[in-house]
């Protein structure tokens, strides 16, 4: 088992990083009174861990016995029926799904499943009717229609069904939904907290950690705990006992983006643009999301540029990312950004050095 999963806190008491939030969540559910919740925070900050721990707190160990199901829905939409397929994770008391996987038809799923859940409510041992929990992932990727259709459904079925929504950026969740939920912001763990967790894992695994080693991993992890633990494990596989100056392997794709950045700094010509296109395609075919590529590219370029150019480049990065979101083919916009950069940089070189 990967350490990421092995040392994932199972209960709210075991949480190391977000102790204050865990404490609040515990208070929240002990009163048997759970509002709709909206968790938001950057990736690797522990949203999912907290949600699972919360479910366990509410429903006991039964919440961990989940089954993966590939369910199909037949939805009657007026003149035609729509067949939808979606993978769900469910236990007796909760259902988890990422409705955004079905693309633009996500709203049917959202409406269907909540109505379905509201119809058959679980009865606990005392004969009381409890509520079910629906965990929706990636709410920020839901279409506007689906989000709108959540609004009233949330109110209507609030006695029988609680929603836990999980997303990266709450800007993309419409105001109407945010105002109906208790918003829980999960901040990314600080580097000290990551070090603490790494030391904890090291102790459990009986490893010798040279001083400063954990801190270096934490620094490289970009405040993502998941990434820190993964690269910690990679280091362990590569070389043990650790040496204090052991190299921490960077991600392949980050290396690759860095290479692209140096390429376009070195030469600005159509020929180079063509070569870069090949590299960008390589990244995209390896399923690196285009906006991440663009962000990383900007990061690499900003490291190498003079201060006066930074403003302009970051403006264009924002511009092309926006265009990318509106358009269909990411490669055009990535390439446009590279071309734009080349022209600006070339112009800058000519005016400075003649």
């Amino acid at each position, binding site marked *: 088992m990967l350490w990421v999963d092995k040392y994932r806190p199972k209960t709210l008491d075991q949480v190391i990083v977000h102790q204050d939030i865990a404490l*609040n969540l515990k*208070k*929240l559910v002990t*009163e*048997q*009174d759970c*509002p709709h919740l909206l968790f*938001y*925070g*950057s990736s690797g*900050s522990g949203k999912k861990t907290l949600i699972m721990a919360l479910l366990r707190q509410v429903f006991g160990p039964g919440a961990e016995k989940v089954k993966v199901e590939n369910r199909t829905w037949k939805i009657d*939409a*007026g*003149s035609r029926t729509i067949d939808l397929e979606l993978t769900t994770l469910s236990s007796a008391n909760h259902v988890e799904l990422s409705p955004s996987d079905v693309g633009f038809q996500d709203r049917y799923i959202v*409406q269907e499943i909540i109505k379905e859940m509201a119809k058959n409510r679980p009865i606990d041992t005392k004969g*009381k*009717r*409890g509520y079910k929990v629906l965990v929706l992932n990636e709410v920020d990727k839901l279409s506007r*229609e689906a989000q*709108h*259709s959540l*609004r*009233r*459904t949330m*109110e209507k079925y*609030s*006695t029988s069904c609680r929603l836990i929504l999980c997303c990266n*950026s*709450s*800007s*993309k969740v419409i*105001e*109407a939904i*945010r*105002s*109906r939920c*208790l*918003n829980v*912001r*999960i*901040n*990314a763990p600080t580097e000290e907290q990551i070090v603490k967790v790494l030391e904890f894992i090291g102790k459990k695994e009986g490893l010798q950690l040279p001083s400063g080693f954990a801190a270096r991993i934490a620094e490289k992890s970009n*405040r993502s705990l998941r990434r820190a633990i993964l690269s910690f494990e990679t280091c362990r596989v590569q070389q043990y006992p650790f040496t204090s100056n052991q190299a921490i392997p960077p991600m392949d794709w980050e290396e690759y983006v860095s290479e692209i950045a140096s390429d376009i700094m070195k030469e600005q010509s159509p020929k180079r643009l063509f070569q870069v296109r090949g590299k960008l395609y390589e990244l995209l075919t390896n399923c690196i999301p285009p*906006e991440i590529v*663009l*962000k990383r590219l*900007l990061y690499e370029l*900003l490291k190498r540029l003079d*201060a006066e150019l*930074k*403003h302009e480049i*970051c*403006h264009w*990065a*924002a*511009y092309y*990312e*926006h265009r990318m*979101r*509106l358009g269909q083919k990411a490669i055009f916009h990535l390439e446009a950004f590279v071309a734009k950069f080349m022209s600006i940089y070339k112009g800058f070189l000519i005016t400075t050095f003649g």
Partner: protein
Amino acid sequence: MAPMLQSSQQWVEKYRPRQVKDVAHQDEVVRVLTNTLETTNCPHMLFYGPPGIGKTTTALAIAHQLFGPELYKSRVLELNASDDRGINVVRTKIKDFAAIAVGSAQRQGGYPCPPYKIIILDEADSMTEDAQNALRRTMETYSKVTRFFFICNYISRIIEPLASRCAKFRFKPITEEIMSSRILHICKEEGLNLDAEALSTLSYISQGDLRRAITYLQGATRLFGSSISSNDLISVSGVIPQDVVEALFTACRSGDFDLANKEVNKIIAEGYPVSLLLSQIFDVVVEAEDISDEQKARICKRLAEADKCLVDGADEYLQLLNVASHVMLALCNMPEELNYES
């Protein structure tokens, strides 16, 4: 009902006014509607106004008061954006319901029960234009037996032919006093302790949206128990602490791009919602006295553009960085000689 259900009820639902006369602060609307209750004469209606001020509440209350619990199911059709409301539904479901004839006026159990049905279309501004067009004729044909209530946030998204067929009511944003009195009422009912500072914080962070205020209040109660301070409310509402905004601003003033970049990275890692941050930056900029009008204009222009991009789904980090860079250019009076427009 099981005791558990009682406690798990949302306060928003629990304290929803049941009668038209209880609706706070919307005097004109209430006057017209009470008149309706007496005469049972009712035009098509269009309610519009910002969220959380009682539009849906009013519509539901009048329907309940007209028909009472028994007839309510057969006389009122409530459709909102969570139901499918394409043109097909308008052509079939709404038309079918509208076409049903009803008996003549007879008072039943103290309710007026006028001889028509009511169709409530909540969140009507999210209906497609086609669907709205399909309603036009339906409204007129069946006007003898059916009344339509449209509820929406933006009246400009209702097509003119529909709007002209309705009596329009603008719901006013709730003033601070009304909101305070309503909140205090809930506090009394629930046995909460809320000091004056917390109360003013609550009305500031909810910005006139009573539903939001009540949700925050309930959230804070669940987390922090029955005495609530203004800090508790801020942490529940997700408002960004002022010092975070200040820090970003100071970084921009310094004119050092890397410093601003670091600050932006920190904000993103903390998970603050950028759309909210933009509006808070806006507040700071507009109120700042040491910034010239021209600088303000430059900054606001970028804020507006970034907001639009965020709505389109653009990346938060890049947009915020872009805003920070432009704020820096404006504050340090660096020229925007670069041609950004092309």
